[in-house]
Every structure is written in C-alpha cells, then in structure tokens.
C-alpha cells in the first residue's frame, strides 16, 4: 500500500491538507434540491462514513466527489484540486473531459450494484483501465491484478466471468478493479446493500483491511457496526444537509440531534 501513499503531489495544495473538503455544496435535479449546502472534510488516511436515511443525498454527494454529478453551488476540493473546474481570478472555468478523466484516475469507486464489466473476466475487469488509460504493460498489469485478487481473497479466480461469481465475490473484484488504478481516495456507495446477508461480511473484511493499510475512504453505508468499528468520523446526513458529525462512538452512542436519534433508534 506504500506505493499509493508516495504518489507525487501535483499542483497547488489546499492549505488545510484535507483529501476531501466540501463547503456549501449544492445540487439540484430538475427543481428538487437534493444537496442543500454540504460542509464536510476528510483527512488523508481517514475513513469517513456517511450515514442517513434514503434520499438524504449521501450517494449524490459521493458521486459529486469524482464528478459523476456536477455541483450547482459551493466548492468541492479533492486532494487540493477543485472538482470539475479551474479557478482563474474570480471565474470558474470548466475542465476539459480529458482533465476530468485524469482526476478520476486518482479516485476509486465501488458501486452498490458492483457494475463489473460482464463481457470481461475478473482479471480483465481489473487490468482494463490500467492498460487502457495508464498504459501499463499487459504482463505487468496482469501480475498486479493477480496480487490484488489474492488480497481480496479471490486468488486463482481471475478467469471467471462476473456472472459465474457470487455477489460478494463480484464486489471484491470491483474493489480490486478500483485499487488497480492505485487511487489516493476510495469511494464506496452502499457496497453491501445489494448482497445477501451472509455475503456482507467478506466484503466488509476487505474494506477493513484496506482501512488498516491507511487508504483514505469515504463510505456511504447502512452498516452501523462497520461505522462504529472502522470509521474515524461519521457524518449523519438528512434532507440534503449534514445534521451532525464526529467520532463514531459519540455520534452513534450519544447523538445530539433529534433526527439522528430518530434514525438510529430505527436501525440499531
């Protein structure tokens, strides 16, 4: 994991060294405002869990971090860079598609429904992006993919197609696929919500392992146990804003806000 940490930092750094810093982030779909001014920060090496009821904007915010959604207001910095824009004087200039793609390469993402490429084997799923966008040589990418598969407990299953794997196995391949790009930040969008209960553990174990290795992670989840055990900070969101945040023991154990209390009383 050391290689992921000693990447050259290019360009200007935000003064606060945060990996993710959101200030007043807003986003609307049509006439509906789903993010109403999100303030949030994630320090390098930290695991942050976003909790809250469905429709509270957690997943939308996560998708804003790697610019799968564009924000309508506020500022969102990732690794010292403004997401999707470049500031010149008092104007924001939209980034070119190639620049957006280049930024995304530094951010891994894991989806609720895995989104593995069904026409490629597990190994090809992992080597595809490194070979295509990072121009890694095929043999090297394959060797690295074997190591990653080993790491997520799927050594030797590289030849299987996604349809031949269980949900838990697919999600672990998806994590390995994201790691193959050697990201500086990993986003998890409800990674265990589509899994049968008995398969949740194997995915969470891989994520815990990743957290121990110092990966910076933002995790949207309903797994309170995971948040309590692994997270450095939890952010409780409701109706497009962050209602309260802090250390997991504090937010989950003795929540201050009424909405947090109401939510936790239902899920715990």
């Amino acid at each position: 994991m050391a290689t992921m940490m000693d990447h050259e930092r290019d360009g200007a750094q935000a003064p606060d060294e945060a990996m993710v810093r959101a200030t007043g982030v807003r986003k609307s779909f049509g006439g509906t405002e789903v993010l109403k001014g999100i303030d949030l920060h994630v320090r390098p090496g930290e695991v942050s869990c976003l909790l809250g009821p469905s429709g509270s904007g957690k997943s939308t915010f996560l998708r804003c971090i790697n610019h799968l959604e564009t924000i309508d207001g506020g500022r969102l910095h990732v690794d010292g860079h403004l997401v999707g824009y470049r500031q010149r004087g008092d104007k924001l200039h939209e980034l070119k598609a190639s620049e957006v793609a280049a930024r995304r390469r530094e951010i891994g993402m894991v989806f609720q429904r895995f989104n593995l490429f069904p026409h490629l084997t597990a190994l090809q799923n992992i080597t595809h992006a490194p070979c295509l966008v990072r121009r890694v040589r095929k043999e090297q990418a394959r060797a690295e993919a074997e190591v990653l598969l080993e790491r997520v407990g799927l050594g030797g299953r590289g030849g299987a197609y996604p349809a031949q794997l269980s949900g838990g196995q697919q999600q672990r391949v998806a994590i390995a696929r994201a790691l193959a790009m050697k990201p500086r930040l990993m986003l998890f969008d409800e990674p265990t919500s589509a899994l049968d209960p008995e398969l949740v553990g194997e995915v969470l174990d891989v994520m815990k392992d990743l957290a121990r290795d110092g990966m910076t992670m933002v995790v949207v989840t309903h797994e309170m146990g995971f948040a309590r055990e692994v997270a450095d900070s939890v952010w409780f969101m409701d109706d497009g804003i962050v209602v309260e945040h802090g250390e997991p023991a504090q937010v989950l154990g003795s929540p201050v806000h009424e909405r947090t209390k109401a939510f936790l009383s239902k899920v715990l």
Partner: protein
Amino acid sequence: MTTTDSTQGDRALATRHDDIEVVPLRHWGRWAAAAVVALLAASLMASLARNPNLEWGTVGDYLFRDFVLRGVGVTIMLTVVAMLIGTVGGVVVAVMRLSANPVLRAVASLYVWFFRGTPLLVQIIFWGFLAALYQRIQLGIPFTDLHVIDVSTNAVVGPVVAAILALGLNEIAYAAEVVRGGILAVDRGQDDASLALGLTKSQAMRTITLPQAMRVIVPPMGNETITMLKSTALVAVIGGKDLLTAVQTVYSQNFKVMPLLVVAALWYLALVSVLSVGQYFLERRFGRGHGPGGSQPGLAQRWLAGRKGA
C-alpha cells in the same frame, strides 16, 4: 417444435403412472388441419408441376448459366458492401445521435429522418439518375472556382456504384436505429464504472458499451442483412447488374419470363437460407451467458421464420 416437446412430456408423464394406463389427450383438430394443408399443398404442387408455362426443363437449363452466376455474384457483392457501409456508418450515426453535442445530434437525426422517410426505390432511382442533377462531381473550396477533383458524374457513378450508394446510405439509417437501441440497452452503471476508472467517454463507448450492445444488435442486423439481400433486386430499375437485372435482360429477349423468374427466386431462397443458418449460430454465440439455456428457438423454426420474412 413445441408439439413434439409436449407429446414427449405427455409420454414422460404417462410412464410415471405405472399402476394404471393413461390415455393422452388426442389432438383431433391438428390431424384435420394437417390433412387440409397437405391436400392444398399437393394440388398446388401438381398444378405447378403440370403447368407447361413454367418449363421446368428451361429452369434447369438456366440455373447455373454464366450470366445468372454473374448476377448472383453482383447480388452478393451488393449485399456485403451495402451492409459494411451500413454497419460502420450506422455505428457512427448512432453514437452521434447519443452525443452530448447538439450539432452532431441534429445532423444524425436529420439523416435518419430523411433516409427512412423516403422509399428505397425512390432513393435508388435518384442515385441512378444523379447525372441529371449534377453533370460533374467537383471537390474544391466552396464558392470559388478552385477544384481538386472534377469528373463527369456518369463516368464515376455507374449503375453498380449508384446501387451501392443507394443501398448503403439507406442502410446506415436503419442500422443506426438498431445500434442506438443496443447502446441504450446497456446498463447505465457500466458508464458510471468506466468513467469512475478514468476512461474517457469514447474509450468507454468503444471498449465497454459497444461490445455489450453487440448482443442486442446482432440478431436484428441479421434480419437487416436478409432484408438487404432481397432489396438488392430493386436496383434492377437502374440496371444494377444484379441477379434480377440479369434474368430480366434475358427474358426481355426470349420471353421465358416465368422460368427465369423461378431461377432468380430459387437463388434468392438459397442465399436467404444460408444467411438464416448463419444468423442462428451468431445469435447462439452472442447470447452466451445470458438468459436460461435451451430457450433459444430451434434451427428449423429460425429457418422458417427467415423464409416467412422473405
């Protein structure tokens, strides 16, 4: 196919009751229908076989003549070239129609609207008589007299080239819709995953979306190919040198219209049958790993469906 399956099912069921005899349901209606169909078919065959105007001997004489085989060759060539133009162009137009660029979208929509909105026969005649619109084809800087290329239209666009242009450009419009449907059938999550990995939109389209869309695109494109093979006969109106043109040229001199049309029909049937078998195997290949196994229609059904389309 289904009839044999169900009767086999009945028998399997009957054997399980080993303590008592089970009488399967008799399908008397089917027997009656089969008898009527057999009678009608036999009388039609007999009337065709005995009809002296059909001259089956003449059909046999002409079936493998040089001019017929040359026509068959041109028909196959037209089909292949037009489908190549149509498929490649169709992918381009489909991607343009789904582009974020409004100019590309508008151009592609206009193209599909025009080429699907006018009859193929009209388009074929149009290209055949292109010289009536432009005597010379000139390529140069617009609104000046500087030309890089300057040739007579009739020298370049002969009947075969006109046929290729008409069939190919028309096919692009239809193929574009097929490809567009295939692309839209691919799960949006695939796009999210590709973009999140840092692929550009065009890389995602080429390496992730289109390969998956193939499964949806291939079967209708097989149908398009079969339709195209038969549509090539339309180019006879501009003397496109295809199979129908070849037999028309001969029967306009010797008046053996029916035998020569039967010769052409037999060749079309044979070619369509070959394509139908090919399509069956293509579908099997691209359907791999999707849906429950064994639900594919049988080869015989596929072949009959292809003929019905003919």
